[in-house]
């Protein structure tokens, strides 16, 4: 498959470069909003919308924005799309707004979005950037929903708020609480590693290559050199 074909740009976000399970980006919303499937879908859709819009705008402006202030510009663009999405969700789906709470404005600092702006949108044309945003957004959403499905079924014996009768007496509340989030996430990363072994650009630690902060930091200090 041609590495730069539109199809592969779209598909890589789904599994091989899945932002959640392979690139390990956006860990905070991944853990926080996967208590319920509804919350995961809400977060996925909101982040995807922001990602596509910001990718398009940043790609459009990539020749106009001076290099020295590009990060502040990206942040402003992203934050404004987040605010717009937040207002729309607040107006039309208030239940999701309540459910996501502070995690909605915090999409601004979701590393996936700044990361894709820095790594992809400022180097590629509008169509490709939009496609990349869609792929990454979908990959993020799918990962969230997968994790939320596991957690909600095990922890609350329901799926998307609809209770599953025969599991009613076997709820393991642990899974919808904070510790369960860490556990399920860890296990899912291991499973994806097993499934894609040898193919994915597997990243088991945070490294400067994919860190959006690398742009300011640029010193390589955040990443201890040795491998585990």
């Amino acid at each position: 498959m041609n590495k730069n074909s539109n199809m592969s740009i779209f598909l890589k976000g789904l599994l091989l470069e899945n932002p959640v399970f392979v690139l390990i980006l956006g860990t905070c919303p991944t853990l926080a909003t996967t208590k319920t499937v509804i919350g995961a879908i809400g977060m996925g859709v909101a982040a995807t919308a922001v990602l596509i819009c910001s990718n398009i705008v940043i790609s459009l402006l990539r020749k106009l924005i001076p290099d020295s202030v590009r990060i502040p510009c990206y942040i402003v663009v992203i934050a404004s799309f987040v605010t717009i999405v937040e207002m729309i969700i607040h107006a039309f789906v208030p239940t999701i707004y309540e459910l996501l709470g502070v995690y909605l404005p915090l999409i601004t600092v979701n590393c996936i979005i700044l990361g894709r702006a820095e790594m992809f949108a400022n180097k590629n044309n509008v169509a490709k950037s939009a496609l990349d945003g869609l792929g990454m957004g979908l990959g993020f959403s799918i990962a969230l929903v997968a994790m939320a499905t596991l957690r909600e079924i095990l922890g609350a014996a329901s799926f998307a708020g609809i209770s599953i009768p025969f599991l009613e007496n076997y709820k393991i509340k642990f899974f919808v609480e904070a510790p369960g989030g860490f556990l399920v996430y860890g296990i899912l990363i291991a499973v994806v590693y097993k499934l894609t072994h040898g193919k994915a650009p597997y990243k088991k630690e945070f490294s400067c290559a994919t860190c959006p902060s690398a742009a300011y930091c640029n010193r390589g200090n955040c990443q201890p050199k040795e491998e585990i």
Partner: protein
Amino acid sequence: MDAFKSLVIILLSSVFVDNYVLTRFLGICPFLGVSKKLDSAVGMGVAVTFVMVVATAVTWPIQHYILNSMNLGYMQTIVFILVIAALVQFIEMALKKFIPSLHKALGVYLPLITTNCAVLGVAINNINEHQYNFIQSIINSLGVGLGFMLAMVLFSGMRQKIQESEIPESFKGLPATLIAASFISLAFFGFGGIIENLFK
């Protein structure tokens, strides 16, 4: 006296019960990324605590005296993130010029903090969720920062142990780290409800 008591409760609950990393999942990236060694965990913790307190001291008046009075509440996110980013840059420059020794110790962590969701999160939560007054907000930010540091320090100790253990191939690295984080989060879970009852 009651005011003092409520401040102590805010401080203790933000450190233990409502620990941002372990119960709210804010600031996970540095928690997992910089907790490998004890000294870097402490450095990051101090830097985050410092930035949180300063950021709250700046964003709280901005929200209450500028945004609210001009009916611009919806600009909160964009203004806060810019203010925090500028603040971090400014702190870094100031430290470099005036206290080089401190800059040497904390400087490397400062740029990472701009996109730390715990900093923006605590600034927003102080205003939207808790609706604290200025002093309470500062205390809460201090507590959240200390809680972050506590979690980092405890976790760095735990990671040293993990490095010495035999782990199945698929679980090596991040999965094992996350599962360890689950255990430490479970431990903090036990603090629930304890603070209010301490002062009954």
